[in-house]
């Protein structure tokens, strides 16, 4: 399963929204994710991919696509190392 799909699963499980409504352009508000949902998602993603997402980076995410791109980059860097 792709990174995007895995993150979609995590967010859909936490927010209890239908996974199909989540696109790269979706904002957290559109996904009906409040601040606690986002923090829970960050923790779950960190655990799933073995990475750390600093708060200052997370605050820059404007939409789901930003979140996915960040994780994809971090996972790629990790694999390179």
């Amino acid at each position, binding site marked *: 399963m792709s990174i995007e799909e895995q993150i979609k699963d995590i967010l859909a499980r936490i927010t*209890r929204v239908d996974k199909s409504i989540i696109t790269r352009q979706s904002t957290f508000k559109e996904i009906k994710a409040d*601040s*606690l949902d986002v*923090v829970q998602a960050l923790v779950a993603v960190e655990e799933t991919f073995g990475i750390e997402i600093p*708060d200052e980076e997370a605050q820059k995410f404007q939409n789901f696509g930003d979140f996915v791109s960040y994780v994809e980059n971090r996972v790629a860097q990790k694999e390179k190392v």
Partner: protein
Amino acid sequence: MAQNGKIRVAVDAMGGDYAPEEIVKGAVLAAEKDDVKIFLVGPTAILEKELAKYKLTNGSSIHIVEASEFIRENESPVDVIRRKPNSSVAVAAKMVKSGEADALFSAGSSGAAAISAIQFIGMLDGVRRPALVGSLGSFAPNTVMVDLGANVDCKPDQFLTFAIAGAVYAKKFLNVADPKIALLSTGSEESKGNDAVREAYALLKNSGLNFVGNIEGGDILNGKANVIVCDGFVGNVILKFYESIGTYARLWTERKLRKYPPLRALAGLLFRRLFPATKISGESEKQSGGILWGVDGVVKIAHGASRAPQIANAIESAKEAVKAGVVESMKSELAKFNQGGKL
């Protein structure tokens, strides 16, 4: 569940305005009963020093569990997840999850306790966020209100889980066989209220619960409903207003009777004796605080300003909630709705 007949309560010893002094003192009082085992969670050195002030009675069962950190009132509750996963409240929650404790009690930040419950214990199937349920006491002895402040912004499906929690509470603690459930709104018509309330109306109408429709503020105390459902913002405002009525009614009456000193003294006395019982403070004044309903374990929270006697009462009521099987009852009610695809 219980171990050797004792209910195990993990106490966030660092949570509360007077922590750890009053929390430890309250725990010592609660531990005088022989059916409870208390784990004081916090920095060992601090708690050992505090506990050394007391001579424990025979059979008292208090143990210290190390947690090096704690959440301060000015810290964001979500810090408990990201920055302080080993804080006292988080460690206490993890003990419930692992089965080392039967209940968690905290008088610290309600938000941090709720977030610890969500993240480290987990929610029951179909429930998104915990809710606070409370009885309205003497003015409306057969009525409960939910949510009393755990969820300031609510999504429509949360109102349905609030109704289920309220119904379980009314059946279990008020002995109401088939609780009448109402939605608090600005009018009795289905079209009244904000978007969330209107959407919740449709969900409740089709829920199979004994939903009697909307009620207005003026109906809260008249017994039209046994369970009044509202978001935590509205519920908390009403709770605090309700708690203040006694004091202001007494002051107003005393002022009106200023010219009649004997009557004034009598009125003052009557009010002092009658009105404390009308406080709802979560479940009731005696029980101190409230249970977070919908969590997969018993989580009891209390006002930050609680002193030792209230702390002891709250620990006692956490123990009673475990004995009463509130989580199991909630689970079986929710299962009916989950099977029907309504949650």
